């Protein structure tokens, strides 16, 4: 088999979209060029090998080339696990294509394995025929033994089903840098750039961006910058000249909707969404946060933008983070706290206070594997019920969940709109996959972003000239937001039950009943857009309903089914509390509702309770996103059982 066939076959295995298209491209180089419609590459190595950086650079090159793309960084919680061990393997998967894609891909077409551990940890994910590029210099007896290889897999025939490229990456890098004057140890560290150069040649990636990046990153140590660039170029030249790499591949730019694009990760999009919400509301942004994986990047990002009036406060703990955000909200700021599941648990009491105070507050939960410390660097969506119910008393909180990395931007704006309009804490549920994954983003026009109106109270609201802090807007049931510094509106609020209207302390049974029901009614009455259903011919009998980051794999699975002639409807929830008003009617239209979730069925539980329908869960809690093929199989089976039941009738 040729490499070309290998890759095209692999394409057919895990496509998000139409089956692979291929065609000859005009040869521009010394070697033949094959055209592909999409490729999945995985870089894998030790935590210290720079795989995340290598992946990021390849992603940037790919984005600037104009392919659609989706990424999946996957790294251990330990910063530097012992070198050469399986727990220390860090990887970065990138899926790029000439058409719009939805997932980082099920199975890599190409694996770059920097050592035996990286090979062993990833080989099971590779389809037969995939290409493997290994750094042979690391396949020493000792390194093989460390991960339990009795025989050398490079020579024992166990990799015969793959297209193996044996490359002495370390030696080639050292050779390329022998005149750099760098110590051997420093020179060796550039081997990831050699690998990047080789892959950049294989896939015709533009290289000037990476060279510029390296010069900037090592601006203070130009000799290191030059060494990395030399290694990068040496890798490219190696691909061009060596016999082992017979062909290179071209993946034409994707035909995305017209406009200006950039690549963006979920946490970056979320940070920008918060700044945009601050601008569109006129409220200064105050972030109270405590470092926690995988949310810390939002704290890092926002702390860079003080010239937008953004205040970031690294608190002594999670509780202080949300407390300070709530205090700032009392003072008229857009108060935000960012965290992950364990942090939400610590913040619960303060979120309950915010429910009682009826102040705007954004609580951003970048979900990770749980319970407890769980899997800090892996993804999961098992905080839905915590977000929904994780407080004492009846304490309803609206929930917004983005579906893709770029959508974290609009979700932050939407969460802020709800918080400010309805004077309520809002929980935003992202997850580790959305946070670190990236995709091209059509840069929005600032003028077209929604406007958010704080409408602060400016004067008394009763006929006798006094101010009642809990006299509500009859339409939204929101209470007035009067900030300190406003004369005549001095008032006291607190966590003790308040008398309707006046806000004075009240232990009256009927008043408490009224207030509990009113707070619930306020949240239930929040205006959220109706659920859109994708059911092209309105013929489908099965609906697949998801929320959050499962959007990509669900949509990819649905495309595959439709490409093969199946009828299936798809809908995706962005608002989990309150649900869109038409959700009940949508659910009732289908004979079967399948709910894939990266938990044990939390949305399904809510749907069953609220709509009395037999929603069927499909669950996975492996710390990784679903694979499109896996979901396609499940959906095929669901359709199949319905057809089977028809046959019985």
């Amino acid at each position, binding site marked *: 088999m040729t490499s070309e066939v290998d890759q095209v076959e692999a394409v057919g295995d895990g496509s998000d979209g139409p089956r692979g298209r291929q065609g000859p491209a005009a040869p521009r180089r010394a070697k033949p060029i094959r055209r592909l419609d999409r490729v999945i590459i995985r870089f894998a190595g030790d935590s210290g090998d720079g795989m995340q950086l290598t992946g990021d650079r390849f992603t940037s090159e790919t984005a600037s080339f104009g392919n659609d793309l989706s990424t999946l960084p996957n790294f251990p919680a330990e910063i530097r696990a012992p070198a050469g061990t399986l727990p220390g393997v860090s990887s970065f998967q990138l899926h790029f294509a000439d058409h719009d894609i939805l997932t980082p891909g099920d199975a890599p077409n190409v694996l770059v394995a920097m050592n035996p551990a990286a090979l062993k940890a990833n080989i099971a994910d590779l389809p037969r025929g995939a290409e493997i590029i290994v750094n042979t210099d690391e396949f020493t007896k000792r390194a093989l033994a460390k991960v339990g290889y009795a025989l050398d897999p490079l020579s024992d025939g166990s990799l015969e089903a793959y297209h193996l490229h044996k490359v002495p990456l370390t030696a080639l890098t050292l050779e390329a840098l022998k005149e750099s004057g760098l110590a051997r140890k420093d020179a060796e560290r550039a081997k990831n750039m050699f690998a990047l150069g080789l892959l950049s040649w294989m896939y015709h990636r533009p290289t000037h961006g990476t060279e510029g990046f390296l010069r900037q990153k090592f601006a203070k140590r130009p000799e290191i910058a030059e060494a990395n660039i030399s290694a990068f170029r040496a890798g490219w030249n190696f691909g061009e000249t060596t016999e082992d790499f017979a062909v290179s591949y071209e993946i034409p*730019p994707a035909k995305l909707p017209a406009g200006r694009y950039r690549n963006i990760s979920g946490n970056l999009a979320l940070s920008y969404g918060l700044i945009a919400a601050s601008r569109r509301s006129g409220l200064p942004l105050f972030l109270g946060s405590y470092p926690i994986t995988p949310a810390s990047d939002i704290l890092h990002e926002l702390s860079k*933008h*003080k010239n*937008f*009036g953004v205040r970031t406060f690294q608190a002594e703990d999670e509780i*202080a983070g949300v407390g300070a955000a709530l205090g700032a909200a009392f003072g008229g700021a857009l108060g935000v706290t960012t965290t992950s599941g364990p942090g939400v648990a610590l913040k619960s009491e303060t979120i309950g*206070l915010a429910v009682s105070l009826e102040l705007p507050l954004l609580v951003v939960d970048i979900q990770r594997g749980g319970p407890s410390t769980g899997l800090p660097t892996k993804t999961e969506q098992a905080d839905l019920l915590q977000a929904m119910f994780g407080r004492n008393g009846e304490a309803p909180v609206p929930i917004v969940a983005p579906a893709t990395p770029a959508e974290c931007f609009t979700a932050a704006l939407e969460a802020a709109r709800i918080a400010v309009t309805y004077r309520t804490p809002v929980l935003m549920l992202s997850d580790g996959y959305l946070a670190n994954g990236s995709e091209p983003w059509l840069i929005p*026009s600032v003028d077209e972003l929604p406007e958010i109106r704080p409408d602060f109270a400016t004067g008394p609201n009763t006929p006798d000239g006094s101010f009642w802090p809990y006299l509500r807007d009859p339409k939204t049931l929101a209470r007035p937001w009067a900030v300190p510094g406003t004369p005549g509106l001095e*008032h006291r609020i607190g966590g003790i039950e308040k008398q309707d209207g006046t806000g004075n302390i009240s232990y009256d049974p009927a008043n408490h009943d009224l207030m509990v029901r009113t707070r619930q009614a306020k949240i239930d009455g929040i205006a959220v857009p109706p659920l859109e259903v994708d059911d092209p011919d309105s013929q489908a009998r099965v609906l697949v309903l998801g929320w959050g980051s499962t959007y990509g794999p669900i949509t990819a699975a649905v495309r595959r089914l439709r490409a093969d002639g199946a009828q299936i409807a798809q809908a995706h929830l962005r608002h989990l509390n309150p649900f869109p008003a038409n959700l009940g009617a949508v659910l009732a239209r289908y004979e079967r509702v399948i709910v894939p979730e990266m938990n044990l069925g939390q949305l399904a539980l809510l749907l069953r309770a609220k709509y009395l329908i037999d929603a069927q869960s499909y669950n996975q809690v492996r710390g990784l996103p679903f694979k499109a093929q896996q979901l396609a199989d499940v959906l095929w089976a669901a359709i199949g059982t319905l057809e089977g039941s028809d046959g019985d009738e």
Partner: protein
Amino acid sequence: MSDQHAFPSLSLVPKAQAPQSAKDFKTDQEVRWCPGCGDYAILAAVQAFMPELGIRRENTVFVSGIGCSSRFPYYMNTYGMHSIHGRAPAIATGLAASRTDLSVWVVTGDGDALSIGGNHLIHALRRNVNLKILLFNNRIYGLTKGQYSPTSELGKITKSTPMGSLDAPFNPLSLAIGAEATFVARTIDSDRKHLQSVLRAAAEHRGTALVEIYQNCNIFNDGAFEVLKDPQTAQRALIRLEHGQPIRFGPDLDEGVFRDPATGELYTASITPDNQDRVLVHDAQAPTPATAFALSRLADHPGHGQDGLHHTPIGVLRSVERPVYDTLMAEQLATAVDQRGEGDLAALLAGADTWTVE
């Protein structure tokens, strides 16, 4: 009123347009503390003191946690928040850090500040946020009806310690000084004049001020500070500190505080013609906190009995200048604008690496 601020430390807070009185700071809410509670005296003293600040009432905020003392904001006709147990310093930090035009006060108790909220207290102190923290210390849990608190004496019999408390107590002022507090003072609920003088000093301070107020809980720990209140015993038990003055006490100011040159420790002794030149002169502004720390625990001396009250210094133990957190934060924002210009949202969203699809 003049353009001058009565308190330069409040220069960022808008001045009151007309003179105020204690009455302006009272609310229409019925005060619900137990009759005879020390909190009444503190409330009256604070309400009477606030007009002195000369700032707008609407720019004053009281934030509290949970406990008897934490009902305080309901009775102050300012903005106020009665929050949750222990968290008032954190909430107030967010408010003060984002609004330098406010005068923010925290009202807390020994359980609220030192037990469930201990972490927030020490971090507010080290950051030097512009907060005035009034810590009502009655050495008991009142609102939950009489369990021992983190300031209760070792061996104290309470509802939760029928055989006596096993916990060594905190000395709140020692804790605050250890937490890098820039202003630390102690006063007593029943001594209105002294209480107000300490409030004045706290208000004059830029940054976090911790004021411990010994407060009597007449239901669950009545008479806890009687030795400091009874005129007879107080003469020998109470030491009034004044910056720049020798530390003397006793009916005829015949006792003083001395430093042992061998160990650096402080001790009390009768003043004689031989030693009168060696009476310690109180320096609240000393660059290092060592002497203030020693003073804060003068009454904890092993020879002074179990109650930790005999030879209790009151007044301002420490008052030093250090940059204020909220001011520093505002300065960073201003510097960022100076260096990079006002943030441009469209430019931010676009970033440096874009491509265009036709």
